[in-house]
């Protein structure tokens, strides 16, 4: 079988259920592939792993992929299983932030690593300064958990619909205690988990053919996961080597993830790409609109 290594953007969780399902259900095997899935984490830049030869394909978010491409990393989007964004800003109701007009004077926490870009773009659109000056907001870097929100170090925090939001709920707050702003609704969303590889691999017909099979099997996995969310979550749990994930959380996460992948057969939507790139550029992550950063070659072959 042909070997393929996939580098994830984050730790093993239902966010990547499609790939684990494809692995577990033998979809990769059916395509004569021997797939290794490498979990990620905050200290892993998937692009580095990809370029360093540690992986053949990676999962990444579009803004950071575009930024890497502009920095000289020849990476290309070959498929986009996530149609919509799960990113949102969650505020505690007690701070009385009910609409974007209420932001001034408050502290907004966000992850960095490129995730701050849409937030900065948003604030730019709203016309708020971000340096904590009068009439503006303070932006605070937070780590990938919700403690700062719970402990009131920030008043709003970046969360994912499928993960951090539920951690807030699990901590004992109810949806009524919270106000959420979905990036999707505010028109500032960027494309999330896509599959990327290097130009070099695409240029090699044998490698490209392997990737076609990989994408086909992966999408099959995703669709299976959407239809059987509980089973998918179980599969994810089995593949989690840290032993830190819980069944309740993963099942719930799978349910949310299914909503994000629902609209996609894996083909990149050009309009969404252009909008995402535009937002990324406005935020200053890239200086010019990218060229050749995506291809439909793989998905076209995979889906026919």
């Amino acid at each position: 079988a042909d070997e393929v290594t996939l580098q994830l953007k984050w730790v093993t969780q239902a966010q990547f259920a499609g790939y684990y399902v494809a692995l577990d259900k033998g979809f990769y095997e059916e395509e004569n592939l021997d797939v290794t899935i490498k979990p990620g984490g905050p200290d892993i830049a998937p692009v580095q792993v990809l370029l360093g030869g540690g992986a053949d394909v990676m999962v990444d978010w579009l803004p950071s992929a575009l930024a890497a491409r502009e920095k000289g990393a020849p990476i290309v989007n070959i498929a986009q299983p996530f149609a919509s964004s799960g990113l949102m800003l969650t505020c505690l109701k007690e701070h009385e932030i009910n609409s974007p007009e209420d932001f001034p004077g408050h502290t907004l926490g966000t992850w960095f690593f490129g995730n701050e870009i849409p937030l900065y773009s948003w604030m730019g659109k709203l016309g708020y300064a971000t340096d904590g000056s009068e009439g503006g907001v303070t932006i605070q870097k937070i780590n990938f958990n919700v403690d700062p929100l719970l402990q009131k170090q920030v008043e709003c925090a970046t969360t994912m619909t499928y993960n951090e939001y539920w951690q807030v709920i699990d901590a004992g707050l109810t949806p009524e205690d919270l106000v959420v702003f979905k990036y999707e609704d505010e028109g500032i969303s960027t494309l999330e988990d896509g599959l990327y590889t290097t130009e070099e691999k695409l240029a090699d017909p044998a490698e490209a053919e392997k990737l076609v099979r990989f994408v086909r099997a992966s999408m099959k996995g995703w669709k299976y996961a959407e239809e059987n969310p509980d089973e998918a979550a179980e599969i994810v749990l089995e593949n989690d080597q840290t032993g830190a994930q819980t069944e309740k959380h993963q099942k719930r996460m799978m349910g949310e993830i299914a909503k994000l992948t629902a609209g996609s057969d894996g083909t990149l939507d050009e309009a969404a790409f252009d909008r995402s790139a535009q937002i990324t550029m406005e935020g200053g992550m890239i200086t010019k609109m990218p060229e050749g950063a995506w291809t439909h070659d793989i998905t076209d072959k995979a889906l026919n």
Partner: protein
Amino acid sequence: MTGWLIFALLVWAGGWWLNARLAARPATGFTSLIIPVIFGLTLIAVWEGVVRGFEISPVLLPAPSAIAARFAASTSILWEDFVQTVIRGALTGYVLGCGSAFLIAILVDRYDFLRRGLLPVGNFVAALPVIGLAPILVMWFGFDWQSKAAVVVVMVFFPMLVNTVQGLSASSSMQRDLMRTWAAGYWTTLLRLRLPAAMPFIFNGLKIASTLALIGAIVAEFFGSPIRGMGFRISTSVGQLALDLVWAEIVVAAITGSAFYGVIALIERSVTFWHPSQRH
């Protein structure tokens, strides 16, 4: 491409040859400064040669020339980060940590009960990895420099404590007996005998703590910081694959750390001039 690799090899051989020549000459202030500098320049040239020779992607390892260019272009960012991390975080923590360790060491030394109770427990606490402590301290002390200082305090406390305690018992029993024959009290003995005798150990602790303080402050920023600081910049720049900026920050850290260490070593030289290890 092979040209660059050959260049790297030649520079290496040349640098080594030059240093071997210099090292064979009697030590002077000049040679002891120039030899490591030549060694470092050689390393840098080899690095440049290898990166260009193997055409390593800049998102994996940037060339020294690129790092230097970035350094020159970002001095204001680097300075802002330096102030946040080194001056506010590391230095405050260093002073607080070493100072309190010193005072506790005197107590521990005075009361045997504390020595026997605190030191073993202290060794255990000192074994707590920073990586685990940093997020907790950030949670307790907030995102700003206070939590960095707290991490630094925890990191430097025990090396300093252990060294000081050891130093306080470093005076020979004859020297202590002499004080007894003069019926010198506890404080007199402490000030005139045991502290001076402890100085080499205390400086050992201060030197170890100087590199720890910097690392501690930077690492702690990985776990939460305002949007400035060396650790913040390094961690976010890695995410943005701006490795040239990452390395520029590392250069700042290395220079600062070495300078800090050097300054302590200089003070040590003038305070413990009498110690055999300082006399040749």
